C-alpha cells in the first residue's frame, strides 16, 4: 500500500482512469444495445472493436503514415482522422452485421435455445480473432502518433492533455447522440418497442429483423469510434487486442446495468477509474483483479447493476 503516493497521484489517476473508462463505455454500448433487444451477450463484439483498430491503421498506412511518421499538419491530420474514423466505424458496423447475419439470425429462425447463441457468439469471436491472428502473423503493430499529447491545463497538479479531452469529448457526444436517437427518433422507438416485447411490436408493424440489424449497426459504429480513439491514444493493435477490452467493457455494461445505455457510460467510467486507483494503491498487478471484485461486490447488492436493466422498460 502506497498511501502517500496514491493521494499524491490521485488527480492524475482519476483523469487517466476516466479516459480509459470512456473507451470501455463506448464498447460497452454494443453489448448493452444487443442485450437490451435480444437478451444475448454478443461475445463477438470485442472482435468488432479489433477490426476497427486494424482498419483504421490500414487506412493510415494507405495514406502514407507509419509508426515512425511525425505528426502531420492540421489539415492533413484532420483528413487522416476523419478517414480513419469513417473506415473504422464502417468496418466495425459491417463486421457486427455480418456476425448477426451469419451467426445469430439463422439460429433465431430455428428457435434455438439461448445456450446455442452463447456458443455461436464465442465461436464467432474466435473465428474473427484467429483469422486476423493468422493474417497478421499474430504480430503487434505500432501506429503513427497522429496527435502528440500536449498538456493543456492542470487540475490539482494533474496534467490534462489534448488527447484526453478529445476522448472524453467524443465519448460524451456519441453517448448523448445515441441516447437521443433511441429515445426520440422513429427508429429508436422501434428499438425500444422490440426490447419491451418483440412479438407485440411485430404485431404493431415493427419489422423485428430490421430493428435487430439496426442495433448491430449502432453497436458496431460505437465500437469503431472507440477503436479510433484507442488508436489515437494507445497507438497499438494486435489480433487479440479486443479480448481484454471486450471483457472489461462487458463488465462495465453489467456494472451500469446491462441493457441500459446510460448505465454503460457510468459503468465504463467507474470501472476505468476504479482500476486505476487500485493500480496506484496496490500496484499494477492488482489492476484487473480489483475491477472484477468491484463487479462481484456490486452485483451482490444490486443484481441488475447500478442503473438497472432497461432499454425499453422505464422510459417507454
Amino acid at each position, binding site marked *: 500500500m502506497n498511501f502517500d503516493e496514491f493521494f499524491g*497521484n490521485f488527480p492524475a489517476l482519476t483523469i487517466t482512469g476516466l479516459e480509459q473508462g470512456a473507451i470501455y463505455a463506448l464498447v460497452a454500448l454494443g453489448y448493452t444495445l444487443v442485450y437490451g433487444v435480444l437478451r444475448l451477450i454478443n461475445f463477438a463484439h470485442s472482435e468488432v472493436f479489433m477490426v476497427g483498430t486494424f482498419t483504421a491503421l490500414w487506412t493510415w498506412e494507405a495514406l502514407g503514415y507509419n509508426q515512425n511518421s511525425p505528426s502531420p499538419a492540421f489539415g492533413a491530420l484532420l483528413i487522416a482522422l476523419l478517414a480513419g474514423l469513417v473506415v473504422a466505424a464502417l468496418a466495425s458496423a459491417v463486421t457486427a452485421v455480418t456476425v448477426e447475419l451469419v451467426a445469430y439470425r439463422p439460429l433465431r429462425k430455428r428457435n434455438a435455445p439461448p445456450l446455442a447463441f452463447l456458443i455461436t457468439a464465442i465461436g464467432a469471436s474466435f473465428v474473427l480473432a484467429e483469422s486476423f*491472428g493468422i493474417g497478421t*502473423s499474430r504480430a503487434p503493430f*505500432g501506429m503513427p*502518433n497522429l496527435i502528440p499529447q500536449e498538456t493543456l491545463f492542470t487540475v490539482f497538479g494533474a496534467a490534462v492533455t489534448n488527447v484526453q479531452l478529445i476522448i472524453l469529448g467524443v465519448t460524451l457526444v456519441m453517448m448523448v447522440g445515441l441516447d437521443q436517437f433511441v429515445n426520440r427518433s422513429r427508429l429508436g422507438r422501434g428499438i425500444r418497442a422490440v426490447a419491451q416485447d418483440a412479438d407485440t411490436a411485430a404485431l404493431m408493424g415493427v419489422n423485428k429483423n430490421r430493428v435487430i440489424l439496426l442495433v448491430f449497426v449502432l453497436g458496431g459504429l460505437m465500437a469503431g469510434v472507440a477503436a479510433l480513439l484507442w488508436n489515437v491514444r494507445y497507438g*497499438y493493435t494486435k489480433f487479440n487486442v479486443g479480448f481484454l477490452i471486450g471483457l472489461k467493457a462487458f463488465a462495465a455494461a453489467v456494472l451500469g446495468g446491462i441493457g441500459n445505455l446510460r448505465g454503460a457510460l457510468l459503468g465504463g467510467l467507474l470501472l476505468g477509474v476504479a482500476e*486505476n486507483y487500485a493500480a*496506484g494503491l496496490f500496484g499494477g*498487478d492488482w489492476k484487473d483483479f480489483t475491477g472484477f471484485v468491484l463487479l462481484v461486490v456490486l452485483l451482490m447488492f444490486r443484481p441488475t447493476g447500478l442503473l438497472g436493466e432497461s432499454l425499453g422498460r422505464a422510459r417507454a
Partner: protein
Amino acid sequence: MRQKLARVLGGIAISALVFGGAAACKADSGSEGGGGSNAACDLKIGFFGPLTGDAAGLGIHMRNGTKLAIDQYNKENADCKVNLTEYDSQGDPAKAPALAQQAVGDQKVVGIIGPAFSGESEVADPIFDEAGLPIITPSATRPSLSTKGWKIFHRGVGNDTSQGPAAGRYIKDVLKAEKVYVVDDQSAYGAGLKDEVKKVIGASVVGEDKIQVKQTNFSAVSTRIISSGATVLFFGGYYTEAGLLLKQLKGAGWKGTMVAGDGVNDANFIKVAGEAVAEGTILTCPCAPATAAKGTFLTDYKAAFDNAEPGTYADVSYDITKIMLEGIKAGKATRADLLSFIKSYNKAGTATGVTYKFEGTGELDPAQVIVWAFKVNAGKVVPDVEIPKA
C-alpha cells in the same frame, strides 16, 4: 455402426503401429550402414520457441540461425540429411508442455534448440529431461534453470546473473542515474532479471511496480514513474509491453531513459514504440552483436533470409545447432549419445567465436560469458559497448 467404426479405427491404429515400427527399424539400419561416413541420416533437430505471437520477433531470428546451419549441413551431406522441426510455443508456458510431449514422442528428434524463453523452459525442460532429449537453449536466461538438476539442459549464453548485474553497472556507471524505477512483467524471465538488476543498483531504486503480459494500458504505472522523479526506468520483460509502456510514458511527458534486457532487444520493439519514442533506449544482451558475427555468417544469413539483418541470438542459435550437427555427423544417432557428445564438447563456434564448453550444470563456461549494451539509434538497435565484468 459404432462397432464398425471401432473396428476401422482399431485397424488404422494397428497398421500405423506396424508401419511406424518398420519406419523406425529402417532409420536404425540406415544410421549404422550410412555409406562411407558413419553419419546418422534422416534425424531431426527441433526448434522450440515463439514463431508467432507477441514475442515472435525474437524466436524467428533464432529459428533462422538454426535453419541456416541445418541447410548448410544438408547441402554438404545431400545423401544424409537432417530435418528441422519447428515447435511454435508462441512464448506461452501454457502451450509448451503439449509441444514438448510432441517432440519427445517423435523418436527421430534427437536434439532441441530452445526452448527460447525461461517461462516455457520451466515447464518443457522437465519433460525433455525425463525422455533424455538433449537441449541447448540459445536465449533462456533465468539463472535457476540450471539448478533444477536437469541432465539434458545446456545454455549457449550467459544467464541473468551476468546480464542483470551488467545492466545494473551500466545504469550506475555509464548513465550515472540516481533515481531508478524498476518494473517487471511477472514472467519467469522478467521478474528474475529485475531482481538481479536491483541487487546492483539497490540504493537508487525509488519505486517498483509490476505489469502483466498482454497489458495495454499503462497509465497508472506511468503516473507513478513520473511522480517518482526517476530518470531511468529498468524494465524486465519482453518487447511488446516494453514498447507500449515507453510510448505511453513518453506521451505523458517523461524524459528519461529506459534500460531493458535481451527480451526487448529486437527490431519489433521499435516497431511497437515508434522510432522517436524508442530513440536512446539501452538494451542489454549476454551475447555479442549478431551483426558483427565472425566468418561468413553475416553474408550467409543475409543471402538466406531476404537480406534481413540477423537479430539477437541468431548467431548463437547457428553455432549451437552446429554442435548438434557435428554430433550427428560423428554418428551420434541416439539422444543419449548426442547428450554425452554435447557434454564433452569444447570448441569455438564459427559465428560467435565463443568457446562452447558446458559446466556440469549445463551453464556455459563463465569465462566465455560476455554482456553487451545496445542502443536504439535512428530506428535501429546498434551495439554500444561491451559492459566490463565487475
